[in-house]
């Protein structure tokens, strides 16, 4: 199975995501990710994105979610890199309440 270069260099990927994060404030608190394969067997990046509680209000969530997804896909050029991207969102309160390393603050 061929894994796209984007997913094999995790430090570089992390840097690219870090560079994109300022474009997403104040909605985004932090962005974690995991790499793997999706249901169709494509190499994929699964984002776990913690949002400010304010950004999860009903009037704001839908716009925030789409804007964040498109910004990250464009910034990382996921399509050109042959990677599928998926986006999961939790509020800051939810992330604090649930002990889940995939969503925790990285050192």
């Amino acid at each position, binding site marked *: 199975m061929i894994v796209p270069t984007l997913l094999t260099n995790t430090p570089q990927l992390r840097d690219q995501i870090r560079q994109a994060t300022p474009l997403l404030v104040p909605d985004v608190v932090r962005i974690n990710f995991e790499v793997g394969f999706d249901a169709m067997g494509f190499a*994929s990046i699964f984002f776990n994105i913690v949002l400010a509680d304010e950004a999860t209000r009903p009037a704001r969530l839908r716009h925030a979610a789409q804007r964040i997804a*498109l910004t990250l896909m464009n910034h990382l050029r996921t*399509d050109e890199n042959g990677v599928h991207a998926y986006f999961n*969102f939790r509020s800051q309160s*939810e992330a604090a309440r649930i002990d889940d390393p995939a969503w925790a603050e990285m050192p």
Partner: protein
Amino acid sequence: MPLANDLLEQAYHLARREPKRPRQASLRRAVSTGYYALFHLLLSQVTANWKQTHQRPILARYFKHGNMFKASEKQTSTCAKFLAANPAPGADTDCMTHLQTVSLAFYQAYQQRETADYDNTKTWTRTQALAIIDQIDAAFKAWPHVRDHKFAQAYLLAFLGDPKGR
């Protein structure tokens, strides 16, 4: 599209149940139901092109989830490339903007539905579920703006899959 609209309403109902401590079953079913709302909306649109109205439900059975996912992933990518070139305002640009909302919602919801239905290692939160259903709702609102446009009709046609069966 009464079935699709009812499913979307039901998805929201499930995602908003149990205000203090939502059950995993409610959130998972909410995500899955949201996906099927969009699936049936798009199927109703593609089969509406078939002249024999009584055959439309039968025709719908020929469409495969995987082909619709692939078409949606490709459409999302096509829209992104089109819009990245800063096209002049107009019908094509409007269509691509709305079509991006629709195809991205399907592309995301397909994978999320798989996780919601089969992956018990994942814990769901209300925000996770609502973010997906909101994207689907945005797709429902975007679709009427574009359904007769040639790009939207080409997207629907792509649900049939690769004509050479690849």
